[in-house]
């Protein structure tokens, strides 16, 4: 496959080996699609059209099919995001415990003017997500791969300092 516009292929070397090992777990190549997309996102931070084309070719799927899957699942980024991606739960059990105040605190202290936007310095993107499965530890927040429990509005500035 020709690399166009500076795209760096993901599935070479170790990552190729990882994907091959994953493929062996399933009777079809298609079943390695979600794992493959995670590997792409770990490598590049997001999943571009070019990446989808590479994944498609690697797994004998069409790029259109891959795009259909990428667009279904909310955790796959279809565009670049801030250096740190912040997901705050807002569903009812957390809502009862003040989640909206936590969301507001994140928007304020990150400099992101609205949900889904990246801060001007490129450091943060904040989104509100649905139930994170930690309702007894309201309000839970995912920052990158760190799952943080019991976040309060007052605790937000200190928490953000851990993510330069």
């Amino acid at each position, binding site marked *: 496959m020709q690399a166009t516009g500076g795209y760096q292929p993901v599935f070479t070397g170790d990552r190729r080996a990882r994907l091959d090992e994953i493929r062996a777990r399933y*009777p079809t190549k298609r079943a390695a699609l979600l794992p493959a997309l995670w590997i792409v996102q770990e490598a590049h931070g997001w999943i571009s059209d070019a990446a989808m084309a590479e994944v498609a070719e690697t*797994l004998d799927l069409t790029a259109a099919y891959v795009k259909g899957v990428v667009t279904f699942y909310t955790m796959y980024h279809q565009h670049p995001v801030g250096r740190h991606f912040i997901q705050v739960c807002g*569903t009812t059990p957390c809502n*009862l*415990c003040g989640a909206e105040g936590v969301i507001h605190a994140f928007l304020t202290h990150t400099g992101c003017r609205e949900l889904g936007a990246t801060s001007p310095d490129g450091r943060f993107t904040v989104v509100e997500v*649905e*139930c994170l499965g930690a309702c*007894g530890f309201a309000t839970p927040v995912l920052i990158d791969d760190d799952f943080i429990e019991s976040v309060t509005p007052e605790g937000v500035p200190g928490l953000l300092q851990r993510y330069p």
Partner: protein
Amino acid sequence: MGYPHRPHPKETVVLSQYFGDADARTYAGWVKRGGYAALQRALGMKPGEVVDLVKASGLRGRGGAGFPTGMKWSFMPREKTKPHYLCCNADESEPGTFKDREIMRWTPHALLEGCAIAMHAIQAEVGYIYIRGEFTEPIRIMQAALDEAHREGVLGANALGSGRPLDIWIHRGAGAYICGEETALMNSIEGRRGNPRIRPPFPAQAGVFGLPTTVNNVETLTSVPAIVTQGAEWYQKLSLSNPKSAGTKLFSVCGHVARPGNYEVTMGFPLKDLVYDLAGLRPGRTLKACQPGGSSVPILNREESEACLLDYEGCVAQGTMLGSGGLIVFDDTADMVYQIMRLARFYAHESCAQCTQCREGTGWTVRILERILSGKGAMSDLDLLLDVGEQMTGKTICVLSDSCAVPVVSGIRKFRGEFEAYITGARKPVLAVA
């Protein structure tokens, strides 16, 4: 255990015995605590015998549907002519529910053991644990436990020296509540959009990759090892009132409570004791409502909550369902209309969009509720919501659609006054909608 609090004397600690005990996560720690003895015993039994044992125990699915587990296993072909699969549903996304996460992060080997026993019972050699993508810590911990289990020969080509291969893999989700629906989960494993399937065919006939498959919840599978070592009768006796609901259940108590957490009690435990006694309300507050089984079960008012016994039949008797056991508590400060709107937004966000009633109905429900909350609602909106709810019920490929209608319909029925207050202007709007 009312984890993260100390166990309350009224709890019956079985599954949650080692919550908070980091040593129990390791293979060595698990074996020290009696781990993998159940798997050893099960591997010495015939698959059919294991199925009969679980049937006799009365274990029912703990993910939400409450289907008898032994019966589900018995649907798998007795004579194996093609590969069989087990899928462990660790997609835990039902609002109010946070028990499977605790099981995975504190007793990962207990889940592996339950999966392996189930795989033996249904004659599967491969099992997938479908863990929702957001559960980064459980994924890390389960992967570490899997690596240990392989190193120690518990899993792999020759599981525990039995001569049988048992392989378990983690399949990471990527953000979709609907993938907790068993057929959508299977589609997601196959590398597809998480759209539920029409049934029949059922998973036991044509599941993942068109092959016989059983899908079970994390808590269900984790309940299996103790049944193997202690017997069906022991499990049956763990019930306070009703023989049709056996064993213990983890209740994820959350919302307006003083001590939120996972409480393990026997089936039939009074809801009012769980809320008033074990978890406790916040100081000075009174109970307004609760949903005992996650956001998809009918809302109970205070009287119903106080009368409710927490087992499958007890909840049905109060007009609700045990569901996942995600107990959401609303005290007197809760704005029922706002919270129901927020639930509707959840379902609208999570709809896979296959079925018109769900795709459109969840959206309409949100917009009507937002209209009411912004002071622009009319009394006819309540009839409209009930009408839309009826059209969303019993008419779609899966029950996400019904689940959206449930809190709306039960909310209007039991808290109509709160809706009317926004409509008449007795209560000031809390939303600004264009």
